[in-house]
């Protein structure tokens, strides 16, 4: 901890400003990034070549923007138009590029080219700033209470001794005083104190039963989300597609892994991998584990029979009790919640750990605070909410400024328990 406050403050300001600026930068390219992640990220990786080439500074490599746009929509047309760059890039990979004509609007195309062209590697922010200052008041008050309690006890003892002395002086004979450890008042007080303190911890412990925040089991294959979702920026839904449509997020089946890993059979380019205990992991050996489950021989890929694959027995990290109904699509598709909101910075995790408490209080707090997008008239909101006439009128007349999940019944028992 740095004792000198001014330096600390300056550091914080510096860090904050860097953070804010980078954030602003992100916001401006937000749309382009989303489109890139949804449509391009399965083949293209920013900052390096993958199935498709690196797209950083892509505009400069093309003779004209029109030709680039034509290429993205339909590469055959660009080649037919006689673009030299098109003829060059078509040889980049044996797999030809998907045609996006009709799948992408002109605005989206502009945004995504802009994003890819101007992309810069993220600034690595290693020291996580100054940790939040803990609340020391509780300790101070605790110490003060304890000291006061001891003083009170001593004073009471003194008082009783003095009383005895004065009684002796006046010649009144009273029974011998009971030593404090036999005094029923003290015993009762201690017992009550024990019950309160003990009760507090028992209750707290009981509430925490079955909660596993921070749970990070060792998986059968060392699969790094950091490498896949972080460094290579593969969209979450590329593998966990059913999160978009179903209550379960779904764990990718072996054939989904093999879609990419048929070609990627060693881990060389990425950073070194470590387990939680600090042991180094051989990425290539982990890919080999996948091949074993898939029954795939990288030396003889043509002989692979996907139907002989065996499922990988992953260990489930996020467990909800049976009496809770949770639906991923409700949150991801209808609610437009980011995966990271509940699963934490998954792109930074090699081995996944449970980032949130997944307790009812945690769920409910989010339902209290999360605003529902009621602008069903533009494309961002949902037509479903047009049914809430009263809220729309209240927003119009200024009675309420926004509608939270709570307002549309998100705190009711049978929204999650049935």
């Amino acid at each position, binding site marked *: 901890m740095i004792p000198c406050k001014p330096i600390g403050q300056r550091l914080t300001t510096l860090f904050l400003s860097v953070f804010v600026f980078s954030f602003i930068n992100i916001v401006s390219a937000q749309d382009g990034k989303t489109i890139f992640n949804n449509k391009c990220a399965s083949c293209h990786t920013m900052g390096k070549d993958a199935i498709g080439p690196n797209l950083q500074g892509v505009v400069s490599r093309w003779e004209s923007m029109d030709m680039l746009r034509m290429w993205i929509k339909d590469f055959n047309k660009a080649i037919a138009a006689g673009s030299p760059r098109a003829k060059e890039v078509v040889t980049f990979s044996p797999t030809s590029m998907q045609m996006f004509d009709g799948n992408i609007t002109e605005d989206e195309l502009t945004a995504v080219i802009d994003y890819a062209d101007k992309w810069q590697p993220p600034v690595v922010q290693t020291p996580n700033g100054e940790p939040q200052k803990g609340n020391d008041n509780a300790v101070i008050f605790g110490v003060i209470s304890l000291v006061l309690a001891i003083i009170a006890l001593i004073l009471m003892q003194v008082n009783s001794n003095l009383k005895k002395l004065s009684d002796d002086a006046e010649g009144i004979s009273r029974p011998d005083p009971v030593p404090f450890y036999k005094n029923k008042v003290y015993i009762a007080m201690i017992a009550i104190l024990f019950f309160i303190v003990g009760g507090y911890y028992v209750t707290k412990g009981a509430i925490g*039963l*079955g909660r*596993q925040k921070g*749970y990070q*089991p060792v998986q059968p294959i060392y699969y790094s989300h950091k490498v896949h979702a972080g460094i290579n920026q593969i969209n979450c839904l590329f593998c966990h597609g*059913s999160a978009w*449509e*179903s*209550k*379960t997020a*779904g*764990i*990718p*089946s*072996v*054939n*989904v892994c093999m879609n990419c890993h048929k070609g990627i059979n060693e881990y060389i380019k990425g950073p070194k991998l470590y387990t939680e205990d600090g042991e180094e992991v051989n990425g290539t050996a982990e890919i080999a584990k996948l091949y074993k*489950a898939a029954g795939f021989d990288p030396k003889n890929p043509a002989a692979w029979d*996907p*139907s002989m*694959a*065996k*499922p*990988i*027995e*992953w*260990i*489930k990290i996020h*467990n909800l*009790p*049976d*009496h809770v*109904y949770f*639906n991923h*699509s*409700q949150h991801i*598709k*209808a609610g437009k919640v980011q995966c990271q909101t509940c699963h934490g910075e998954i792109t930074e995790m090699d081995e996944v750990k449970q980032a949130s408490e997944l307790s009812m209080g945690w769920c409910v707090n989010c339902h209290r605070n999360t605003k529902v997008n009621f602008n069903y008239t533009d494309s961002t909101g*949902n*037509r*479903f909410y*047009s*049914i*809430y*006439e*009263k809220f729309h009128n209240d927003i119009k007349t200024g009675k309420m400024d926004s509608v939270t999940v709570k307002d*549309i*019944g998100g705190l*009711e*028992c*049978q*929204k999650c*328990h*049935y």
Partner: protein
Amino acid sequence: MSQNKYWQSFGEVNDPEDFQKKSQDEFQEELPFEGFDDKGLADAKAPRRDFLKYLGFSTAAAALAASCKVPVRKAIPYANKPENIIPGEAKYYATTYVQDGDVVPVIAKVRDGRPIKLEGNVIEGSNYALGGTSARAQASVLDLYDMHRLRFPQHRVVKTNAEKKEEIKFEEVPSFEKFDELVGNAMKAAGGSVALLTSTIVSPSTKDIISRWPNLKHVQYDAVSYSGMLMANEASGFGKKLPSYKFDAAKVIVSLGADFLGTWLSPVEFAKAYSKGRKIDEKDPAMSKHYQFESFLSMTGSNADERFTHRPSETGAVALSLLNAVSGGSSATGNATLDAGINKVAKDLNDHKNQGLVVCGSNDKNLQIIVNAINNAIGAYGSTIDWGTTVNYRQGVDSGANSIEELLAEMEAGTVGTLMVYGANPAYDYYNKDRFIAALKKVKVTVSFSEKMDETTSLCEYVLPNHHYLESWGDAEPKSGVISFIQPTIYPLFKTRYFQTSLLKWSGNNTEYEDHFKTYWGSLGADYNKTLQKGVKETAGTVSGGSYSGGGIDAATTAIQGYKKGTGSELVLYQTVAIGCGTQAGNPWLQELPDPITKATWDNYAMISMAKAKELGIKLNNDYEYYPEKPLIELTIGKNKVEMPILVIPGMDAETIAVAVGYGRNNEMGRTAAGVGKNFYPYATYNGETVNYFTTGVSATNLHKKYKIAQTQKHNSYENRKEVVRETTLAAFKKEPETIPAYRKHLEEDFYNNANGNFRANATLYPDADTRKHEIRWGMSIDMNSCNGCNACVVACHAENNVPVVGKREVLRFHDMHWLRIDRYFVSDEKNPDNLKAVVFQPMLCQHCDNAPCENVCPVAATNHSNEGINQMAYNRCIGTRYCANNCPFKVRRFNWADYTGADSFPDNQDQTIVGKLDPVVFQMNDDITRMVLNPDVTVRSRGVMEKCSFCVQRTQYAKLDAKKNNRMLKDGDVKTACQTACPADAIVFGNAYDKTSAIAKVREENPQRSFYVLEQLHVLPNINYLAKIRNTEEADERWKVKHKVAGHGEAKEGHEGKKEGGH
């Protein structure tokens, strides 16, 4: 004229005061604390110190267990994820329920590879796939996961055991090839003819396979035979076929003992059509008229506008008299009431020429010929009976060519070398099963394709179980021109094979049935996939009256005139909606389903009349009703004597005793069916041509012994509040249509006069429920005029909501768990309960009150209100005080007295040694295979929590999410509750009541005169409304009239007391 009275039990009618007193008790028995006696707590089996020890130990153990590491859970994805399958999202496949000739097109909901729920298939513009299911079709998904299904091909061997005794054992045959070889060799060695005995086959591709096996003798045999109709239709010139019945086109429906809404021929289809004619337009109230002639109170009979009873042996006389009366004569049965009825019916039929329909449940050929003559006389052919489209539901004949009689004769003669049995079980359900068993022994090679070790299969040498229909490809042609496809919804769970594949292989054709099926339907071309997707393909036939010939009438008349009126008592056999002919008897949901009339579960019993009860010295007081111990009687049927418990039912013919078939199964059928009830098939009789399901000359004696029957009707008391049911006659309704609105008005104006102008808000101490108002308000409307009591909704609710099965022992203790029950009320003269005027069925489920009495009393707020109007129940919050259940005026809350589902963290919670034992069926439902039927979107409740109808909240939530995901508004029809889709009569409407265009809002708007809320005077403001039941009779109804005029204040007072009770 005396008033009508609504009642549920005899105690209520005969001794109302005692009834009141007894219904105060929550438990009818002493609380069963075993081990506690008079010696004081210290000497008890579980003394106080032990209790404290256990308490301390269990707390410590729980703490220790909890502090240990949380178990490692694995998440195993697919190795190769199939396209189009999204884990966690359900897929729907059109398929067809086929069982014993019953055909119901269904949609199977498949979650993560497991079919978990069936819904009726609705295809727009279809005449056949109209939605709705039967209770048995709903329950069939549980049969798929029955742990007692046969799991591999097996071969019976005789072994000598250690004690040198011969033992018959079934041993697994390692492979299908080996099985084929074994059977092939045996067949070759046996020689003789080869016969195939099946139930009715409705599959065209299977029939094709059968026809390709040269010299294969195919015999169709139905457990409950329709041979009489088939033969009669042949005699009347239509061929050995059955026509389509159009109940929706009929203005006058006459049933001679046919239970066409419950079990006769094609009840789902008939209920759908029948309910169309029963819906009422309030502006111009009119409905079809339904007369029923029968000997006991059937479910269909209980829906009739007018009922007439007679002895079973008199059915012929009734039919003849009716024919005579419609042809201009008059009835002469010798029974004045009956004659008057027949004359009335005949006049009504003649007044509605071409709009009448007569159906008859008898299996007597002569009787059916007469019924055909009546239908011809009233112009039914071509209008309400369509011979242009024939139906294939039942094809078995009792005698003649390709009948079981013929087969039995050949088996006895020893000419049958090989007998293959599929879907038939004559060793259990043939009237002369001993003859079949003896004849079977003379056949050298016996093969069964049964899914279960039923009575016949256990006598066969080779057993090759067939797939369940949910695992199969297949087809059904229920009607000519209608093809309904079956497609697999799950990979076969066990080592089973299509029986058709066996037929193909053994006849020398080495193709699999799947391939054969696809080749067979290749003719459809491009339509094949479309049909597979939709489920049903229809080619409309032209309506035709057929070629009626009256040739057989004279002979039939002579024959019937020769029938003697029965002596003594008469025994009539019937099917219940739950068990039917008994094929699905091993299904726990069906066994626990209360019978619509008797409300009894887990048994068959003898239904007797009130007169018979009096004769036997059985007093119909509270003790009879209140305690489950029912009197045992001994029935003497011919030479046989059989002990049966009785249930007394009003509106029965005095001398008729009715017993359900389908019970009394062997142990191999599974722990559910074994030991439940008695088999009454052997008491059917054979008249030389067909099997008759009644027998005369029966005598009954009271054994003065008791037997416990688990009935559910008495479990819930409304404390004498009668506004639960609203029912009247069409005449009374037309005369005074404003009765219900006037009552509501009267409540508002007269009683709650201090409501300061806002009745809804100020008539309660609690904040106005309406301020919880939002843009969605789920509401339900139940039309009691459409509800026929078939119970399909109850099973659907079981399947959808993981409602546990509790077993007979627990039902006896009022611990049944049905979220939805159908209350049955008898309507009779106040003075004469046996003069049954009607039966009212009222589906009763959580009313989702806006001002709910249960919500106010929960100390932990485990039950509360959602802004969508749902009365929510948070199971994991419930601490089990049961205050809510006690404060519920409708008694729809259900408490988990034991760990019925095995959901508790502590396995020992299923051990009930201190408070009683759980039946084996509870553990069967907890089997790993059986649990695959559970709906993963609904919590499985553990011991000690309350549960109840949730308005299928998982479906409302899903529909909202689906709308959001697709960026659209919620549409009417997006949410359909499980009970709603199961209902074949469209009695239930559900939706958002705030949406003015929704079906529910329309129903409420269009039916202001019939729409009522149960116990309106309590001001609990339910979200379910009912539409009053209207009977189509001309009778005046005092009760309907007095409501808001004479006894108005009295009612209000009663209501006031009710209010107070509900409020504090």
